[in-house]
């Protein structure tokens, strides 16, 4: 149970090897073991497949193909989510939108995760002044509500895929900093890091070989939750008309466009909404599963 926070060999070797299998060999198996993790992995798997199909243009119809013969058709096997007022297949559009959303969300989380985790590790490991400066800066960023921060940055940079990703990612940086910093603070004072310091290891070696591997669990949980949030934020921005410019369709824009025809064609609103909700639920469940897998206290339950 008290897994490598002390760095000392555990008294019973059988438990030791068992834990190590979980840590290094079987993240997937450990996540699968929790109910939330299972649900999350299945949903996220489907969402990823859908998004990749959308990005690769592997959709039942061309997402932007207008067809006067199929205007406002309801849900059927030919059109899983019906068609809109231009005869475009809603399902194909939603897949493409999902692909774009995932692309922006992944880019945003890579930006936030890289800057934020590094900031958190540095703030936790280095001295008082560095730490205080970084924490003060995150307090200031934290004071601006994330959606507003994204709005302000999109205003400044203009809407495009990479700019949306920067706008969404920057808002999540302070959350990574805070979440990563506290375990690093505890690890810095732990025996195995002190031992490493006594042995004269360089700071870089201590940081990347000894501390970083012990915070990957925290980072993984946060990344999954951040992805859920980034998908939501991207949808909100494009709902407000600040998403990537046409002809790229995005989920939020589809919801916004569908609102005017939804009283006669509910499916045009339901389709993209459902895709957003499912994707968000999936990444949230996956995050819960990762937390169960990385936190021994909840794992035993």
């Amino acid at each position, binding site marked *: 149970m008290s897994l490598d926070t002390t760095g000392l060999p555990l008294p019973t070797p059988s438990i030791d090897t068992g834990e190590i299998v979980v840590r290094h060999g079987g993240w997937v198996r450990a996540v699968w073991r929790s109910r939330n993790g299972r649900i999350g992995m299945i949903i996220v798997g489907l969402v990823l497949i859908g998004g990749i199909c959308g990005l690769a243009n592997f959709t039942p119809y061309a997402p932007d193909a207008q067809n006067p013969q199929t205007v406002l058709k309801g849900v059927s096997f030919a059109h899983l989510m019906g068609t809109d007022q231009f005869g475009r297949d809603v399902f194909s559009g939603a897949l493409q939108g999902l692909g774009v959303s995932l692309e922006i969300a992944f880019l945003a989380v890579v930006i936030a995760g890289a800057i934020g985790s590094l900031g958190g590790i540095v703030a936790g490991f280095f001295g008082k002044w560095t730490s205080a400066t970084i924490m*003060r*800066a995150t*307090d*200031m*960023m*934290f*004071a*601006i*509500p*994330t*959606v*507003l921060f994204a*709005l*302000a*940055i*999109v*205003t*400044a*940079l*203009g809407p495009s895929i990479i700019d949306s990703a920067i706008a969404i990612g920057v808002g999540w940086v302070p959350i990574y900093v805070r979440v990563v910093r506290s375990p690093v603070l505890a690890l810095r004072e732990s025996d195995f890091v002190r031992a490493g310091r006594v042995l004269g290891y360089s700071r870089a070696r201590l940081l990347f070989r000894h501390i970083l591997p012990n915070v990957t669990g925290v980072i993984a949980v946060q990344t999954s939750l951040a992805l859920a949030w980034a998908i*939501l934020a991207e*949808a*909100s921005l494009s*709902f*407000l*008309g*600040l998403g990537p410019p046409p002809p790229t369709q995005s989920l*939020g824009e589809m*919801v*916004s466009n*569908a*609102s005017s025809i*939804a*009283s006669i064609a*509910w499916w045009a*609103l339901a389709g993209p*909404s459902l895709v*957003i*909700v499912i994707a*968000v*639920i999936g990444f*949230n469940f996956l995050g819960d599963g990762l937390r169960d897998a990385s936190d021994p206290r909840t794992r035993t339950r």
Partner: protein
Amino acid sequence: MSIILAVVRRTLSTIVTLFGVSVIIFVVLRLLPGNAVTESLGVSEGLLTKAQIAALNHYYGVGQPLLQQYWSWLHSLLTGNLGVSLVSREPVSTLIGTALPVTLELAFFAMLIGVIIGIGFGMWSALHPGRWQDDIGQGISVVGLAIPSFILGTVLVVFMSSHFHYFPSSLPFVGVFTNPWLNFQQIIFPALVLSLGIAAAILRTTRAAVLEISGLNFARTALGKGVSRQAFVWRHLFFNALTAVTTMSGIQLGYLLGGTVIIEQIFILPGLGRLLITSINDRDFPVVQSVVLIFAAGFVIVNMLVDVFYTLIDPRTRKR
């Protein structure tokens, strides 16, 4: 004495944070491509003479070095002058003065509903762990966290317009003092939509905090010495869970302020959020920077009050 000291220290750090926030907003918005001044006049830069551009820049205060621009912005902020809108030519303070009450009212009702639902169902599900009451609570929290407010808002507007012939745009918004009943009808649905996400987060926090506290020794002692159930639930469990719940409510305010931007757009309420989106589309950055700063200031000040609030209710936080 130590309370006063803690409050003073917290106020000072809030002022420092606000100062930093103003720097961040200023720097981010100066990354703006294109010249907002010429764009606002609807002419391309080439049509103006150098002297005209210089005169315009001087009028709007944008041609100077960055540091000087920031300094003059900060100076006018502190003297209550927020500048002039590049589009409507009205003072920014007038625009904000008419929009702020709408957003405040919306945020107040959303927070109120969110806190009532969140604490109510959170306590209810924590007192019946693993039973059907708990399942209802969990259901509300999953739905509330997963359904974005813009989808819920759109669905609600579509439903109401097709079944009750209610359109957000059919009547202009009226203030609470002009016609309280009509104002209430206009504000209650957007507030409900906004409150769901907050309710979900507060519900989770309340449930977790109450469950944790009810496992502690003092709770068992209280039950053992025969405290009445009502006193146990409210005095022992609720009162001790209050710090966690208040913190969560303070954090949710940030979510709430971001949410008002979207909800005001859907329900066509003339609040700060709608002002922000309009001015973003018009690249009217004197308005954008002031509105974002006001949102941030509201968030920081409320969280400061939350901290001060616990210093008053929870003696454990006074030690340091």
